[in-house]
């Protein structure tokens, strides 16, 4: 069967699932993911693993688009207005989460070196879960603003901490005598390089935005730049999320045209997101729950607790309003691609892990992907940031 036909089927099914979810008062995103879960290898096996991998480009494109949208939120004016809040909230909730998750999984029997990796992994927040809900519900307001900033910050902190932690654990396990400073240096170098790639991509797009070429051409160039960034990142083993996020930051600060980028992406994003989320659902492996057992549940509970309590506690040191303080944490629950990607990297760089880390993270993702968007939407409703649909 040709891939065009698969894509058509995925879109039909995903859209159907989304509509059904809406009828049941669930977020559409959850509908897409559950539909994918049903079509995937876990149940009907209509979307086989093979199909999933051949449609991988849709994932890459979707993630790039999400990352760039997150990046465009980080204008220097946002920094000036909310920068202090965001830094406190982000550092607070991520490190709180990391400590709790590492502790809980270690107590539940994870070897210490793996628990140390799971901690930073738990810090990441899925941009797709958060951004797609915000776009879908057209939410606006204090919490939305803070969330978008936090998604960017949290992932940035995650990538940094994770890289250093992997190096640290590597030197702990191998005892190669390589100095910590060198290891940390290589992580920092990776991140600088990723940022450079992102800046180049972003500047390229900004140049054409300033030239005011037609929107059709701009869309083509934007997509070209995004795919270029992810491609270069993948080639050099850097984080594609980071490069595209930095590209977004560059564009918004050089041109001040956040809305233009959003409207360009808006033209094409819904079908791509439906494919992406349905595929993400298909990729969830329900069977993994049984294999991972208690540690998985511990990870889920600890991460949820860490994210919620962390942002709640640290919001007291910020100017965030009271209503938002109680709800912000729910928005940071979604977790998906970034965590999985990092988990795979961890397994490649550490000897004899054989799926222990990925298993736990995947179990978490099954839970967070399905319930995360739901919790987020409910929280947004509670703080009145979702406009009533006519």
């Amino acid at each position, binding site marked *: 069967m*040709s891939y*065009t036909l698969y894509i058509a089927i995925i879109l039909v099914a995903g*859209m159907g699932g989304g509509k059904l979810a809406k009828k049941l008062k669930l977020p559409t995103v959850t509908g897409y993911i559950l539909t994918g879960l049903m079509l995937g290898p876990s149940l009907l096996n209509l979307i086989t693993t093979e199909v999933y991998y051949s449609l991988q480009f849709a994932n890459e494109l979707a993630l790039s688009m999400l990352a760039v949208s997150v990046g465009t939120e980080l204008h220097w004016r946002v920094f000036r207005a909310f920068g202090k809040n965001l830094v406190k909230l982000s550092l607070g909730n991520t490190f709180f989460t990391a400590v709790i998750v590492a502790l809980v999984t270690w107590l539940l029997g994870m070897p210490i070196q793996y628990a140390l990796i799971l901690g930073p992994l738990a810090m990441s927040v899925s941009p797709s879960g958060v951004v797609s809900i915000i776009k879908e519900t057209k939410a606006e307001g204090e919490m939305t603003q803070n969330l978008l900033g936090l998604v960017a910050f949290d992932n940035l902190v995650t990538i940094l901490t994770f890289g250093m932690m992997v190096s640290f654990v590597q030197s702990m396990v191998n005892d190669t005598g390589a100095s910590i400073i060198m290891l940390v240096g290589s992580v920092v170098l990776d991140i600088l390089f990723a940022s450079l790639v992102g800046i180049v991509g972003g500047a390229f797009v900004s140049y054409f935005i300033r030239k005011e070429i037609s929107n059709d051409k701009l869309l*083509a160039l934007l997509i070209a730049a995004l795919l270029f960034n992810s491609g270069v990142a993948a080639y050099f083993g850097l984080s594609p999320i980071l490069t595209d996020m930095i590209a977004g930051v560059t564009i918004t600060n050089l041109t001040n045209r956040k809305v233009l980028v959003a409207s360009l992406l808006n033209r094409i994003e819904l*079908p791509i997101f439906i494919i992406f989320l349905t595929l993400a659902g298909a990729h969830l492996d329900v069977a993994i729950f049984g294999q991972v057992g208690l540690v998985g549940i511990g990870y889920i509970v600890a991460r949820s607790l860490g994210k919620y309590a962390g942002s709640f506690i640290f919001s007291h040191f910020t100017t965030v309003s009271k209503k938002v303080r109680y709800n912000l944490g729910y928005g940071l629950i979604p977790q998906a691609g970034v965590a999985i990607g990092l988990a795979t990297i961890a397994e490649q760089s550490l000897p004899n892990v054989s799926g222990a880390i990925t298993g736990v993270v995947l179990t978490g993702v099954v839970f967070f992907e399905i319930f995360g968007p739901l919790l987020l939407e409910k929280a947004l409703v509670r703080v009145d940031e979702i406009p009533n649909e006519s």
Partner: protein
Amino acid sequence: MGNWLHLLKMPNVTGYLIGGLIVGPSVLNGLTLEVLEHFEIVAEVALAFIAFTIGLSFKRSYFKRVGFQPVVIAAFEATLAVVIVIGGLLLLGVDLPFAIVLGAIAAATAPAATIMVIKEFKAEGPVTETLLSVVALDDAFALILFGFASTIAKSLIEVEGEFSLFLSILNPFINIIYALLVGAVLGFLMKWPLKYFRTSSNRLIVLIIFVFLASGFSSLFGISELLTTMIMGAVLTNVSSSATSMSDLSDRITSPIFVMFFVIAGAELNLSIVPTVGLIGIVYIGLRVVGKISGVYLGAKLTHAPETVSRYLGATLIPQAGVAIGLTAVAQSVVPMYAPQIRVVVLSATLVYELVGPLITKVALTKAGEITPETETSAHSN
């Protein structure tokens, strides 16, 4: 690349194609053959959208106004291109089956580049209008003529009567009927979701679902993708009032796909075969153009089409690409002994036609007075 060529007043399409040619295996080899194979889906999708939007322009009111004119013109130009090319090849002294099969491929026209030129320069008028329908019909005629030709060629080669002449002639017709059927059913079905979904992002998904379904089904059943999607558009535009929103929506999303499509098409052009073309290739390339132009002239005169149509339409039909290359693959099974040579001729003709065709289309439309200089400059700044 497309932008720099704008300064030389060349169509963007030519820029994309040349850009592709440069990064492709022929020159820099940045896009290797292996990489190009992965992008088949881009070509499928791009052509499906192009054919679908052509189909959308086939309102009943349009046919009421022009009657059978486009059909007659398409029949004449396709047939004459075939006949003249076959004649010329026979004069060169090639084998009859070879001449027949290669000649039949001459009927095919590539709609993509032509449509892009029309869109880029916002061409409007009788030539443009007729061009849209003729280019669409060409696919059907090319398939029919090629079906006939390959049948005749086969019967000339095979002495034993173990294959059914009747069936082989029937085959292309059956394929076309299937394509019409699948396209019509999908076009009709598409009406319902468009009634239900009103927002443009939902409709975009409906659009993509149906275009991909049409394209997927046609490759599943082995029928012409262009015809299927085109008929789908043609049926939809006559049964649903939302059809106009479909062409707006597809315009909004297709620009990145088209750029990729043309760059890939350019990368697939093979410079190295040019020296091997020989006389046969030159005759094919030249006489096909003669056939198209004279065929259009005759057909247009016969149906009393406007003067500009008879004079300029033929030149706009020069581009040739995907369908022709596809037919060479079929030729492989019909006349295997001639297949390599047919392939070389068609591929080098594609190279010439694709690089020169869009420019000629633009010049012809300008001469016909359907591209106004103002829109040409304002294309810069919108």
